[in-house]
C-alpha cells in the first residue's frame, strides 16, 4: 500500500495557509496513484509529530510543500517526524539538489522516503510559467512580457535565493519572455524597484511562496506599489511607474503544483502509473486554458 504525506507550514492565524496543501492533496487523490494521501502541518493538525501515525501504507513518501531547502526541510521536519539517523548529508545537496532519503521514522517504526522540497524541483519552473499564463489568462504569454520571480533574500535562508535564481535562469533559457529577473524582498535587486529592472511595458510578478498570506498579500503588493494599503486591494494588472504589473500571488496556489508533489514522489521511487499525465491534464482544465 502506497501512501503520500504532504507536509506544510500551516498557520495559527491565517486559514489560507493550508488551503493549497489541501487542494493539491485533493488533486492527487483524484488521480488515484496513491492508496492514501495525508497532510501534516507545523502549525495545524495533524502536526508533523503525529501525522505518520495516521498513515496506513507500507510505502510512505513524504513531500515537503516548502519553497527551498533550509531550516524546515533540514531540521524541523526530520526532527518532528523522528527520522532515525537523519543528517542533512543524506540529501547530499548543494542547496538545490535534495532528492530523497530513505530512513526509519521512529514514530511508526517503518521506513519513509523523505523527499526534497517542491520549490527546488525542476518541474517547479513549469509551475511558475503556468502561473504567468493563469494570471494573464493567456496560454501563450511571453512576447512583449517580462517575468519577475520574487522571494525572500538570503537574509532568512541562503538557499532561498538559490531557488529563485535557478528557476529564473531556466525560464530565461527558454527565450519565451522578453526578460526574466530574480528579485528579492530582503536584498538587491529588490522587488520594491521592479520597474527599474524591466524595459517591458508588461511584467508578470510571481512570488515563490507556497501560500497566500502576509508576504504575498500585504508585504509585496505594498512594497511594489500595487496599493498604498493592502486592505484597499489592487487590480491585475496595475500600472506602476509606467510598467503594467501582473501580480500573480503565491505560485503555490497554482493547481499544477500537484504535479511537482508527484514528481518528488516519483523521483523517490513511487509508482504513479498515469497520474502525472492525469494531473497535468486536470490542472490545465482548472486554469482555464
Amino acid at each position: 500500500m502506497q501512501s503520500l504525506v504532504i507536509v506544510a507550514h500551516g498557520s495559527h492565524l491565517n486559514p489560507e495557509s493550508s488551503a493549497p496543501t489541501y487542494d493539491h492533496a485533493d488533486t492527487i487523490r483524484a488521480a488515484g496513484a496513491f492508496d492514501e494521501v495525508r497532510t501534516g502541518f507545523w502549525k495545524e493538525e495533524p502536526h508533523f509529530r503525529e501525522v505518520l501515525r495516521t498513515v496506513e501504507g507500507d510505502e510512505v513518501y513524504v513531500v515537503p510543500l516548502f519553497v527551498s531547502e533550509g531550516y524546515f526541510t533540514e531540521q524541523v521536519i526530520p526532527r518532528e517526524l523522528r527520522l532515525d539517523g537523519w543528517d542533512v548529508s543524506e540529501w547530499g545537496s548543494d542547496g538545490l539538489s535534495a532528492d530523497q532519503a530513505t530512513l526509519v521514522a521512529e514514530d511508526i517504526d517503518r521506513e519513509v522516503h523523505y523527499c526534497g522540497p517542491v520549490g527546488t524541483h525542476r518541474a517547479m519552473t513549469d509551475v511558475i510559467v503556468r502561473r504567468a499564463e493563469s494570471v494573464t489568462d493567456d496560454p501563450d504569454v511571453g512576447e512583449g512580457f517580462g517575468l519577475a520571480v520574487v522571494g525572500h533574500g538570503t537574509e532568512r535562508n541562503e538557499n532561498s535565493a538559490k531557488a529563485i535564481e535557478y528557476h529564473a535562469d531556466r525560464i530565461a533559457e527558454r527565450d519565451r519572455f522578453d526578460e526574466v529577473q530574480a528579485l528579492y524582498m530582503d536584498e538587491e535587486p529588490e522587488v520594491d524597484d521592479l520597474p527599474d529592472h524591466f524595459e517591458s511595458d508588461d511584467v508578470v510578478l510571481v512570488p515563490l511562496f507556497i501560500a497566500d498570506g502576509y508576504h504575498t498579500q500585504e508585504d509585496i503588493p505594498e512594497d511594489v506599489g500595487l496599493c498604498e494599503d493592502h486592505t484597499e486591494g489592487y487590480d491585475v494588472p496595475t500600472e506602476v511607474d509606467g510598467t503594467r504589473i501582473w501580480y500573480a500571488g503565491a505560485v503555490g496556489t497554482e493547481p499544477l503544483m500537484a504535479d511537482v508533489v508527484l514528481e518528488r514522489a516519483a523521483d523517490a521511487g513511487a509508482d504513479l502509473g498515469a497520474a502525472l499525465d492525469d494531473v497535468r491534464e486536470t490542472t490545465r482544465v482548472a486554469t482555464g486554458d
Partner: protein
Amino acid sequence: MVDASSATDGGERDDAGASDDEPAVPAVDLPGDAFDAVLDALADRDPGEPLRFEGFSVARGDEGGYVLADSDRSTRLGEGELHEALSERAPAVTDWYAFERVVGEFGPRRAFVRWIEDADGETVATRYAALAEGIERAWGELKITATVTDRGERRYDVRHADDAGVAVDELEVHDDPLDARDLVTYDEKGRYRPLKTAPSLAGGWAFPDLGPRDLYETVETVYPATVANWHREREGELDVNHWRETMERQSGIYGVVKTWDRGEGHEHVDWVAEACCDDSQCLKRREWEYDDETDLDVDGGDGVFPCREPCSVVVSAARKWTRLESEQERTYEFELTPSEKEQVEDIVDAVADGRVDEIREADTKEGANRYRTRFLRAKRFDDEGNLGGVPTESDDE
C-alpha cells in the same frame, strides 16, 4: 435514536436463542459479497483450517465441500448447503465481513469502529439488537450514531452533539469525509479555529449515512490524530512527551522557551495548562506533565482522547510568555473605587472565559459591559491610555 432511515425497527428475531426479555435482533439477509468473501477466505486456507465466526466455524473439507462446526457437531456441506447455513447465521457472517473485509486491519480504524459497538465485549446478537435501535457515542463535540442495515452493513450518522434530535433535512448534509475540513475551519461566529480540538466546533451539518471507513476519516478530519492517539493509549503505547523534553526540543524562534524553565518549580507551566489546556479550551485530555517525575497541579481534563505533548499553540504562546515573564515586577499605585477594582476583575474574567459577546449592550450590571468599560476608560485613562494616569515606564527609564 436520531436517524432511523437505515435501520430496521427490530420486531423480527433470528433463531440464535434470544429470550423474550432481550432486545430484538433484526432480520439480516446474507449479501452475495459477504458470502463470496467467505468462499475467498476459505480458498486461501488449507482444507481443515477453520474460518471462525461467532459460535461456529467453517473449513474446506479434505475431499471437497465444506465442514461447518459448532460446539455440538460438525456437518459436511456442499456450496449450496453452505450458503443456506450461512444465511441462517447471517448476523455472525455479516459481522465477520464488516470487520475483516470492510473495516480492515489498520489498528486505529479497526479499534475505533469496534469500540463504537463494543464489539470486543458484546455478542453479535446483542450488538445487532442495539444497532437496530441506534448506538450513540460521543467523540469531542461529535455525536456518532451507529445502525445496521438488513444486509448487516454498518451505517453511521455523524453530527455536532448540539444537533442531536434535529431532522436531517434541516441540516447541511454531506457524504464526503473531506468536506469536514471546511466545517471545522471557522467557529459559529466565523472566526478561524487554529486548534481543531477547541470546543468551538460549529454545528448545523450532518454526515447522515457513512460507512465504517468514511466514519473514521470524518472523525479524523474533525479531530486529527485523536483516534490514532486514543488507540495507542488503549494499547498501553501512548508516547507522552512532557513539557520539559518538548521545550528542550524546540529550535529557531522557539528555542528561547527552554529558558523559561529555571529549575524553580513548575508554577509557570501550571498557569499555561490552566490557560490553554482546560476542558473549556481544548477537548483533549492532557496526559503530559512537567516532566516524567513531576506532575502539574492542574487537572488534565476528562476528554475521551489524550493529549500526548504540548501542541504548537501552547509552544507559540509559551514563547510569548517566556519573553513577558522575563520582566521584573514593580509596584504601581492606582486610585480605584471598590466597584472599579471588581470591574477590572470582571473584564479579565469575561475575556478569559470568552463571554464578551454574551454581555448585552444595555446590561450595565455586568462589569465587562461595553458602556461600563468605556466609562471606566473615560474616567481613569489619560490621553496616552495610561491607567490612572500612571505611565508604564517611570520618567528615569
